[in-house]
């Protein structure tokens, strides 16, 4: 075949508009490239990745009988796939192509044009030396298990699950809380349309519950993930509810019957603002509608003695005090991560008196106060049970702040407006919004802001510096006094209010890092999961077959979250539909003549992909199981190991080239 003949290399340098051309003297680079050994042709084009750009390469491969191709443009993580397809459609094996990065690694990071040009030349030289040696390979293909796992049952997870399941694929949804619904279930209304959150969420939740393709693991957590794209093995741990989920019908007789006549334990769903019994359902619309027992509160479990009136009351006798955590494993082809966010803890900003003054609430607490199913049945009240006459809503708590989170949490402006509207509607109180910048980019958002301006909600452009109870005037007595500069009026103001709502920002979940490790993903400086490409692969990750959606990727409102969830579902379905995946054929190979059978490699391989052939006394790599990290190759004392496409010879050639 043609590859075995003398190498005939084509070098294609991309201007990338001015991205590369603006810094690198491309004509000089082509000129230089043409002088390199085995280079038959070297060309410049403004956008190599465009169709005409690719056509140039295809044409040359045919006309000039090229058997090696170099494209010098952006980073391989962006367009390696593109150009591999280009060359293979022209009949050249895709692994006889090599990509040289002269944008992210040269033009974008170098000021001195001369030096940039030199660097580009050197890298291309190295690329040519490498590709000269490269050999034809066939990508491994593996079947894809046609099932999908979704981690996290908030609105993102719910939407993704329904999309995947309704397309016919089997879906596993794991939710750590006793019910799905996430934070959206806590809201009363949603901005800017003010439609009732549970009215739009609950139907989705129940549909999910009864969907034939969906297996819901509530009150469960993913504790282990093995495998790779198309073939993941996931370990799930079900926490004990002490109530048999399959028997329980959610009649709540047991709750009624509990020896605790009144609820006295803080309910997590209401953020501790309301109370529940030791045996309870998280909230009225919970899915699954199944009771559970908190072992820390239940007398029977804690002290071993109790009248156990709950057991008597249960006709299905579903209650089981000896329930233990169970583990089970499922095999899926892809995973969608929708683990959401956690609200910023305002105790980290002591100047706002959260936890000190009872009438200072976080926005999420306010959502509960405003919910008809919440502790105050929808009308926010002060601790003394009276209605607030004035309420201050402080934006950007923990956000846009070098001491906490530098990023803007994006949703706070809008939810603050929503809260302002609802508080005014329910209490008639004077409502102040304290904002730094009003960010209302989104369909109908600016209009909503205008509506509130007309409703007479007060807006003060300035960041509240402190909350004090020390009055300097009679009007301030017994009030929470907010000290702020009205930056538009150019005056420092002291504004007394009865209630304060802190618009806290969104942060990654506490265990985001463990999850990241378990799934082999990466996080940004802010701790949120990183997508593969901010524009072109917004829900993909560096790990093939794992997708992200919703606030686990960054602060996001419901519309954006749902949109992402749909996108992630589509990605997962694409895999299922294709039925197989191509895996880079970078596996290690043993040269059995050189192998001394020392078995060092066997111990090193994290995937148990190397087996020792006792009679031949050689180690052999199981091609399917090898992930191609090359650790064994680097360790082999007798040089018997090598890695496809990353052979010692290739790497050393490239090294020689860059010097």
């Amino acid at each position, binding site marked *: 075949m043609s590859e075995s003949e003398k190498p005939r290399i084509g070098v294609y340098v991309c201007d990338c508009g001015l991205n590369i051309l603006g810094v690198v003297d491309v004509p000089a680079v082509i000129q230089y490239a043409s002088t390199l050994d085995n280079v038959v042709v070297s060309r410049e084009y403004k956008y190599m990745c465009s169709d005409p750009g690719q056509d140039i390469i295809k044409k040359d491969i045919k006309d000039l009988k090229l058997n090696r191709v170099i494209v010098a443009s952006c980073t391989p993580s962006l367009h390696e796939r593109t150009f591999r397809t280009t060359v293979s459609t022209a009949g050249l094996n895709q692994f006889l192509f090599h990509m040289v990065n002269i944008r992210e690694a040269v033009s974008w990071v170098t000021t001195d044009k001369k030096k940039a040009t030199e660097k580009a030349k050197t890298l291309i030289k190295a690329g040519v030396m490498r590709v000269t040696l490269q050999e034809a390979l066939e990508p491994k293909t593996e079947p894809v298990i046609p099932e999908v796992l979704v981690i996290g049952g908030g609105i993102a997870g719910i939407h993704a699950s329904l999309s995947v399941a309704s397309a016919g694929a089997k879906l596993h949804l794991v939710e750590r809380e006793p019910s799905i619904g996430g934070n959206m279930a806590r809201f009363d209304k949603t901005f800017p349309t003010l439609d009732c959150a549970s009215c739009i969420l609950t139907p989705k939740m129940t549909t999910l519950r009864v969907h034939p393709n969906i297996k819901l693991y509530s009150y469960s957590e993913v504790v282990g993930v093995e495998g790779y794209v198309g073939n993941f093995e996931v370990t799930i741990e079900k926490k004990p509810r002490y109530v048999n989920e399959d028997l329980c019908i959610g009649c709540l007789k047991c709750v009624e019957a509990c020896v605790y006549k009144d609820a006295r334990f803080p309910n997590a769903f209401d953020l501790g603002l309301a109370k529940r019994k030791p045996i309870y359902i998280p909230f009225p619309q919970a899915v699954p509608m199944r009771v559970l027992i908190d072992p820390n509160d239940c007398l029977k479990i804690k002290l071993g003695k109790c009248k156990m009136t709950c057991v008597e009351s249960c006709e299905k006798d579903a209650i089981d005090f000896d329930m233990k955590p169970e583990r089970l494993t499922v095999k899926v082809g892809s995973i969608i991560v929708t683990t959401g966010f956690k609200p910023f803890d305002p105790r980290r900003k002591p100047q706002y008196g959260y936890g000190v003054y009872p009438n200072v609430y976080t926005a999420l607490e306010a959502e509960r106060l405003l919910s008809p199913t919440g502790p105050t049945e929808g009308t926010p009240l002060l601790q003394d049970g009276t209605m607030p006459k004035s309420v201050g809503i402080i934006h950007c708590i923990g956000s846009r702040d070098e001491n906490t989170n530098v990023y803007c949490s994006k949703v706070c402006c809008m939810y603050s407006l929503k809260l302002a509207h609802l508080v005014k509607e329910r209490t008639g109180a004077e409502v102040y919004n304290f904002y*730094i910048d009003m960010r209302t980019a989104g369909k109908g958002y600016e209009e909503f802001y205008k509506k509130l301006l007309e409703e007479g909600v007060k807006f003060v452009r300035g960041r509240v*510096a402190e909350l004090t109870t020390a009055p300097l005037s009679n009007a301030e007595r017994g009030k929470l006094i907010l000290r702020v500069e009205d*930056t538009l009026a150019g005056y*420092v103001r002291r504004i007394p209010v009865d209630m304060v709502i802190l618009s806290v920002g969104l942060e990654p979940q506490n265990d985001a890092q463990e999850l990241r490790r378990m799934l082999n993903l990466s996080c940004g400086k802010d701790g949120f999961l990183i997508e593969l490409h901010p524009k072109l692969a917004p829900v993909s990750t560096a790990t093939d077959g794992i997708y992200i959606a919703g606030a686990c990727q960054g602060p996001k409102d419901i519309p954006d979250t749902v949109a992402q969830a749909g996108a992630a579902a589509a990605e997962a379905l694409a895999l299922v539909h294709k039925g197989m995946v191509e895996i880079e054929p970078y596996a290690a190979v043993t040269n059995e003549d050189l192998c001394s059978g020392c078995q060092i490699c066997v111990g090193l391989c994290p995937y148990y992909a190397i087996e020792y052939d006792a009679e031949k006394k050689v180690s052999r790599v199981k091609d399917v199981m090898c992930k191609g990290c090359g650790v064994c190759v680097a360790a082999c004392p007798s040089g018997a190991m090598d890695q496809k496409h990353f052979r010692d010879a290739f790497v050393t050639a490239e090294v020689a080239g860059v010097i």
Partner: protein
Amino acid sequence: MNVSRTVKYEEELDADFANEIAAMPGGEKIWDCIQCGTCSAICPVSVYMDKTPRRIIGMIRAGFKDEVLSSVSPWICTSCYSCTVECPADIKITDIMYSIKRMAMEQKTYRRFVIPDIEDEFVKMVWKNGRLSEAKMGMKVARKSGLRNLISMVPLAWKLSRRNRLKLFHTERMANPEQLRIVLNAMQEHPPELHVKKPGVVPTHHHEAVTT
């Protein structure tokens, strides 16, 4: 009646002013200001300033050099560092106030009133004795701030001196201040402010009086 039109023409602004401030200790992050006003709101004396700290930063970035250098705000600042601690952009506002005071002193553009004079006296005294004599300093201050003030301080001074807390005729001084002066003189060989570029010419105010 008299109304006056105030307008600032681009060529009257000093585009380099912000960079000068940014080049001085503490000014590094001045471009990060988001104009949130936390500094002004936490400041215990901003209510007495002619321009709030936030506005000062805004004007520096816009190049209002003469307005800033003639503002009393930095002289009212008590260096309580509240703004510096609270600033969400991590801007060392207190230090910027110092920078402004130094430039104003250097260019003699500061508003003539007692505080700059006190600071000046203080420096002279330290240069001379290496230390500060509160009684003498107090006397100078009282004199500068007017006869009535001077008289009003007499009873207090009397009480304090009876408790041996105000040593009226004692001068607090080092054993040999020249040891200190060696160091200070050596410092004088360097420009008074680290990295600061040559201050540009101070532009004049531009108010057009219109009489109707």
